[in-house]
């Protein structure tokens, strides 16, 4: 056996406790990297299989395509499989549910996964095929061959015509794939009926297609092909739909790779700091040993190699063990996840590529192994250099028993009183680098935890619900402009006989459990930058704080808004609808048609930007500004504030009051809250697991530092005890020492975490991630971090005090 290898091996055995810490850090890092990347890969493959098995498999969709253009698109080299369908009509059902009548080519049907369960597709003008759920929603129980009478509204040039009745024969029943909780249900009609109902010039088709087989590797590449093809034929952006699920299922998503890369880098960084810190301390302790080796003729290169071999030996066992444990954990997690969904799993199994999964696992194992060894190498680079630089004379200068830290001064003013705190401070001052490394390593996890916790606390279910429902109950009006069957829903008609009367509002106010109501006004206007009618919110003077308190840029008084010449724009809308082209001082031109036959063109200057709840329109004014535009009752919504978050009785009473008014709709804060709570809970659990493991790596660093601190000072502690330090004082000293690490860690964690989480919050808010709107400092997470660190410190200090006392005082003094 090579002599260097033998020395490294023996050293590894001799310093086994310290190597165990490095091993644990490597184990946790490789476990985490393997588990996260392979679990994500399997989960993604499963999702892809599920998407390929059940979801529509079109990739691009162009709406409002005339027949001639469809032919051109079909013959384009970028177009693979393609299909066409036309939406001919719809039937409106209660609770805003609809059955849509489509005329569809076979290819389009295949791409939309509409499979026939019985009968045949409609061919004759009076034939129809529909899903069982569509039939159920229509209140019919049908079999193939049954006659069925349906009332529907034909869509002509995008507008819903008057309702008409028709007798059909059910030619086929589609597979039962629709969810009763959904909003839209499918019925298929024949081409003949389409031709009869709509002249060829009035039919607008939707063109569905898959990209022809080419060497595309990423989703962004596929998206570009879809967009470029549209641009080639002057198809406007609003008529393009991209099936991102299908793209993600078939191409690599660069965002996913980016997220996984960030996670791996974070884990690796935590590992590197920990291992480096352990090695840094260890080399300091072994100066004499390396000096002796050099004195007997070992070269710098050989010394470097010994340190390297020692490290690699630790990684050689720990990394594969971490990967195997990660594999076991992954299998366990998948078994738990699929325990109640075996049927689903069996259905997607044919779509799962087992060789691909094996290759992915080999890849993630190689990635974890490679990262673990790279971590070791990077961590050891400086310690290797330090070991190599040690001179022979240092072997004589440094006593083996103690590392003196940094005692550069020869003298300093003596303290008049010596106490435990002073001894601790004095000690930590001697080992500044090590102390700082420990604090930084521990803080790295803490900072990440604070950032994640901030994001999670900003996605607070309460805030999310607050954003979507202003008040505990929110009454709104169902406004529609393009439905000939329901002209009463046009705004200009609604305001003629607005159901939100003072009388109704008074009744709501008088409900037991209702504390307060806030009424808002709206006008609907056409804005050239936006294609559809846009709602402008009017805020009455009694609610002016709602308007003014949320201004984030610019300034304006409520009085100034009363004239209607100035408006406030929601800052998110400025990005989403106006693509960031709006600035304070710009003028918005809008056209309001109040139904009196003379549309009014108005101009308003943007006085400020604000941050308003999602539940509200995005251009805001004072209600008084509407008086000159629309003298009618412009009430559009009412926020109801209750004594408690939710009360079934209060909801029922509001429902009873508004049930006579079909235009009024009620939403509750509670329903949004419950929905978001469920999402937040799942995300929080995943984040906690990840941070737990990451924290484990960094805790290794603290354990190392504190063990080193006691090991190096065994003699010093022995002396202190010989001159009268009690066991209690020793425990107190170690507790205090750990306490200062914790204090430093907490300070760095909270200060840096809070500072760094702010831009992350702004980024998440700007990109609309998880519906984040309002900054919430994660107090609970900070408290949990504090408690965990304190418990850890108490346990560690107690263990170390016990370990320091294991040898007799005299054995320690003699070291």
């Amino acid at each position, binding site marked *: 056996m090579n002599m260097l290898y033998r020395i490294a091996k023996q050293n590894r055995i001799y310093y086994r406790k310290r190597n165990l810490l490095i091993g644990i850090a490597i184990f946790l890092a490789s476990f985490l990297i393997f588990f996260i990347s392979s679990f994500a890969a399997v989960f993604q493959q499963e999702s892809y299989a599920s998407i390929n098995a059940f979801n529509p498999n079109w990739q691009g969709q162009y709406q409002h395509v005339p027949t001639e253009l469809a032919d051109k698109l079909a013959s384009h080299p970028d177009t693979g499989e393609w299909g066409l369908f036309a939406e001919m009509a719809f039937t409106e059902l209660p609770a805003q549910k609809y059955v849509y009548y489509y005329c569809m080519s076979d290819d389009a049907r295949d791409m939309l996964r509409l499979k026939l369960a019985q009968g045949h597709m409609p061919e004759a003008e009076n034939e129809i095929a529909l899903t069982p759920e569509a039939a159920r929603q229509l209140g019919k129980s049908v079999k193939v061959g049954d006659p069925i009478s349906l009332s529907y509204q034909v869509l002509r040039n995008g507008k819903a015509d008057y309702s008409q009745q028709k007798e059909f024969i059910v030619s086929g029943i589609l597979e039962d794939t629709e969810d009763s909780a959904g909003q839209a249900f499918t019925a298929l009609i024949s081409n003949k009926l389409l031709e009869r109902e709509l002249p060829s010039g009035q039919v607008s088709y939707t063109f569905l297609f898959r990209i022809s087989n080419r060497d595309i590797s990423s989703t962004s590449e596929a998206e570009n092909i879809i967009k470029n093809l549209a641009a080639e034929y002057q198809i406007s952006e609003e008529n393009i739909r991209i099936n991102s699920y299908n793209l993600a299922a078939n191409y690599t998503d660069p965002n996913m790779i980016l997220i996984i890369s960030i996670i791996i880098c974070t884990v690796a960084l935590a590992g590197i700091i920990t291992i480096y810190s352990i090695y840094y301390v260890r080399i300091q302790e072994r100066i004499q040993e390396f000096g002796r080796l050099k004195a007997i003729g070992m070269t710098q290169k050989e010394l470097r190699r010994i340190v390297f071999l020692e490290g690699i030996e630790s990684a050689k066992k720990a990394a594969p063990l971490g990967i195997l444990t990660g594999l076991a954990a992954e299998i366990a997690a998948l078994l738990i996840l699929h325990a109640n969904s075996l049927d689903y799993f069996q259905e997607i199994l044919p779509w799962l590529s087992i060789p691909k999964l094996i290759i992915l696992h080999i890849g993630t194992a190689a990635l974890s192994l490679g990262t673990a060894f790279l971590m070791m190498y990077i961590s050891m680079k400086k310690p290797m250099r330090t070991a190599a630089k040690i001179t022979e004379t240092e072997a004589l200068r440094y006593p083996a028993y*103690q590392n003196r830290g940094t*005692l550069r001064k*020869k003298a300093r003013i003596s303290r008049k009183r*010596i106490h435990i705190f002073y001894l601790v401070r004095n000690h930590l001052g001697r080992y500044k680098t090590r102390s700082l490394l420990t604090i930084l390593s521990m803080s790295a996890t803490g900072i990440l935890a604070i950032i994640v916790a901030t994001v999670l606390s900003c996605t607070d279910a309460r805030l999310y619900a607050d954003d979507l429902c202003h008040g505990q109950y929110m009454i709104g009006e169902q406004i529609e402009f393009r439905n000939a069957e329901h002209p009463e829903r046009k705004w200009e008609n609604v305001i003629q006989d607005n159901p939100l009367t003072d009388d109704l509002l008074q009744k709501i106010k008088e409900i037991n459990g209702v504390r307060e109501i806030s009424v808002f006004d709206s006008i609907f206007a056409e804005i050239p930058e936006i294609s559809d009618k846009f709602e402008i919110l009017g805020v009455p003077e009694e609610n002016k704080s709602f308007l003014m308190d949320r201004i984030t840029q610019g300034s304006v008084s409520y009085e100034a808004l009363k004239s209607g010449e100035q408006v406030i724009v929601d800052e998110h809308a400025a990005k989403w609808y106006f693509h960031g082209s709006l600035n304070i001082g710009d003028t918005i031109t809008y056209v309001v048609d109040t139904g009196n036959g003379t549309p009014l063109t108005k101009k308003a200057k943007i006085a400020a930007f604000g941050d308003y709840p999602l539940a509200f329109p995005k251009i805001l004014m004072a209600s008084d500004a509407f008086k000159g535009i629309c003298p009618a009752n412009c009430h559009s919504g009412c926020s109801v504030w209750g004594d408690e978050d939710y009360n079934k009785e209060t909801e029922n009473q509001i429902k009873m009051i508004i049930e006579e008014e079909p235009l009024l709709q009620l939403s509750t804060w509670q329903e949004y809250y419950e929905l978001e709570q469920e999402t937040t809970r799942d995300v929080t659990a995943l984040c906690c697991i990840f941070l737990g493991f990451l924290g484990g790596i960094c805790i290794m660093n603290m354990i190392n530092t504190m063990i080193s601190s006691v090991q190096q000072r065994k003699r010093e502690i022995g002396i202190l005890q*010989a*001159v009268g330090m009690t066991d*209690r004082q020793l425990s107190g000293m170690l507790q205090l020492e750990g306490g200062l690490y914790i204090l430093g860690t907490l300070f760095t964690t909270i200060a840096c975490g809070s500072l760094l989480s702010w831009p992350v919050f702004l980024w998440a808010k700007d990109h609309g991630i998880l519906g984040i709107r309002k900054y919430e400092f994660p107090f609970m997470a900070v408290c949990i971090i504090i408690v965990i660190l304190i418990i850890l410190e108490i346990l560690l200090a107690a263990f170390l005090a016990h370990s320091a*006392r294991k040898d007799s005082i005299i054995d320690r003094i003699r070291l």
Partner: protein
Amino acid sequence: METIVKAEKLIKYYGTKENPVKAVDQIDLEIKRGLFTVIAGRSGSGKSTLLHLLGGLDRPDSGNVYIGEQNIFKLNGNDLAKFRRRKIGFVFQDFNLIPSLTVLENIILPLGLEGKTMEKHAAEKLLENIGLLDKKDMLPDTLSGGQKQRCAIARAIAAKPAIILADEPTGNLDSQTGLEIVTLLRQSVKEYGQTLVMITHDKSIARMADKAIVIKDGKVVGRT
């Protein structure tokens, strides 16, 4: 004369059951208050172990040590430590100073652990007595061996304990410095009315003692 230290059937063995090393083997002894007692013997005779047992730094396999009326091994760890810092001062061969504390801080360390401090004039007098007044703010690494040992002596006597136990305090010093140290120790214990028990190989130092105990193979083989 009053007995200040009394050892009864003191036993301390090292090694294994099959091959025990009898460091201290059934030792009975008494040390009188205010005397300078030397424990002599060859290397490995057990004299350091005996001294450590007398000071409560180590625990015996059996037997008792009384300091005054107190059986020190009846005390628990915390109480023994407190007892030690109040009643016993130690001086070691290799000084055992805390490198990060200054000379003065090392000296007042036992008092600091007791929650006390030393009056300025008392500290200055002590430093003057040991000849380190001008070195009080220096760190131990900058001192010579003799100066370090003076500092260690000052630390041992600072809390005015009843007994000073010195484990070959001149072992790392040249003969001249060694003599100076022993002289200083004698003067100090006389000034504060303390009892000095010292281990030494040096016959000239042993001759300066009031009493001598000779140890061989863990047993007392001679007393003068």
